[in-house]
């Protein structure tokens, strides 16, 4: 692992969309350093540009200006440096759970021709079996390893997506509101799983959410984005919380947790638009 303690560095990152001849500013001058091995949550109201920021870091949509670097190298098109877990349970539906988890490993080491030869496909699956099995157990999917995604619940699909991304051992794992569409119980279980897996693997996680409680519960560091108001500087506030401060469900009830939530609300969620006179 490189010595650089900063895995992701954003300098003056701006994103502007052109629509019907009009430009709309989504992100303005975002400056942030993401330290290696931390779980950083990005929280903010709808439309503040959280997902745009994540898409830019993923290399899916380029930033309009500014620099974004991973381990000192400028961000390029998507590659296995950056794993991704989307909100809408995007796992290839045509593969079983086991095949899904092994997919990245196969892409990494097998040629396209070999993908088309069933013998090679089976052989490579067997080769990665121990690694895949370990990941399946880690995310609690060993029981359903031969099922197809359509046979799984939303929570299980997200577990597949997490295991699939972890198998690649990316430099940073991007998670775009991964648990927003899940019921509260499943969401809580997956939050705990994310923490366990992150602590065990030491992977850097960039976790986008609109839920303040989730952001405080999970984050070692919280990046609060507020909605951009024309002619006013956008606020990007990074709140550092001591590691492991609020990572237990019981901590959610503490006054400190509540105060922290309020601090985030004040920083990013208060409506900053000019008030219309009655």
């Amino acid at each position, binding site marked *: 692992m490189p010595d650089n303690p900063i895995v992701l560095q954003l300098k003056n990152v701006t994103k502007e969309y052109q629509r019907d001849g009009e430009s709309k500013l989504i992100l303005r001058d975002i400056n942030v350093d993401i330290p290696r091995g931390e779980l950083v949550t990005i929280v903010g109201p709808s439309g503040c540009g959280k997902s745009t920021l994540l898409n830019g870091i*993923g290399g*899916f949509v380029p930033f309009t200006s500014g620099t974004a670097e991973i381990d000192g190298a400028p961000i390029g*098109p*998507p*590659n*296995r440096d*950056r*794993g*991704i877990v*989307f909100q*809408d349970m*995007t*796992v*290839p*539906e*045509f*593969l*079983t759970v086991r095949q899904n988890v092994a*997919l*990245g490993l196969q*892409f*990494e080491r097998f040629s*396209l021709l070999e*993908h*088309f030869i069933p013998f090679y496909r089976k052989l490579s699956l067997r080769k990665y079996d121990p690694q895949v099995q370990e990941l399946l157990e880690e995310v609690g999917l060993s029981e359903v390893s031969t099922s*197809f*995604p*359509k046979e799984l619940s939303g929570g299980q699909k997200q577990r597949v997506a997490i295991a*699939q*991304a972890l198998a*690649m051992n*990316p430099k940073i794992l991007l998670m775009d509101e991964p648990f927003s569409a899940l019921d509260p119980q499943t969401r809580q279980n997956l939050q705990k799983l994310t923490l366990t897996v992150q602590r065990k693997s030491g992977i850097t996680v960039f976790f986008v959410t609109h839920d303040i409680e989730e952001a405080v519960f999970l984050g070692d560091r919280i990046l609060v984005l507020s909605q951009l108001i024309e002619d006013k500087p956008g606020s990007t506030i990074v709140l550092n919380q001591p590691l492991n401060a609020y990572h237990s469900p019981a901590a959610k009830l503490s006054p400190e947790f509540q105060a922290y939530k309020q601090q985030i609300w004040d920083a990013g969620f208060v409506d900053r638009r000019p008030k219309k006179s009655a």
Partner: protein
Amino acid sequence: MSLLRIRQPISKKAATTLCLLSIFITIGGYLLIAEIHHRAHPRDQMVPTLAMLIQAGRTAMTPDEFTGHVPLWADTYSSVRLVFIGYSLAIVGSLIVGLHAGAWSWLNALLDPTLKFFSYTPTMALLAFFLMILGSGDESKIAIIFLATVVPLTRSLILSVQNVSEKQIWKAETLGASNLEVVWITLRKTTEPQFLDDVRLLLGSAWVYLIASELIASQNGLGYRISIASRNLNVASTLFHVLVISALAFITDRGIWALNKLRNRWN
């Protein structure tokens, strides 16, 4: 009444019964009308009875006295061969063009006018053109089948590929997939159920174009046999060969359906 409720599900047993009932009504109804017509006009051959259809089948299966070939087998082989070659070329062609044009917008922009032009051109009108440049042999018929099916198959595949969520593509890229792996693994597999359904549904068109071209210019094949029979006003033989074509198309349709189920259990 619950049967009037929109999308009210029915049991498997009821579905099978209704299916058999519709077949029975169609076939039974026809045979009944034919029988009544035959009794009223015993010398008329225009509405053949079951016995006349069976006789037509026997004649088709009587070996030719000069060549020793059974006409039905020879005709079926000839027609199936042409459909197979023409349609297989169309499937492979549309797969290659459709997947790539769906993936790369510039390629789609380049091919779109040509595909649209051919989709609006009545393919049968080009038969005369093909007969002139390719002759009246198999090549012109293969070309007609190919052209008539490759365009709708390709256009449909392009749409399916374009409908695959870009997140699926991004996901594959973050897992280290190359462009060709995204196209030939992620996009091909995701669109395969729809593509195989298209292949199944357009098979009927392939047969239509083959029979039509055999009716116009041919020395053998099921279409040729129908044209001979109709020239002799032999309605029984015409209907018999139509039934053979329908049976072949039905079997292939079910075959592709089963293949789709088998290959895409995930869907």
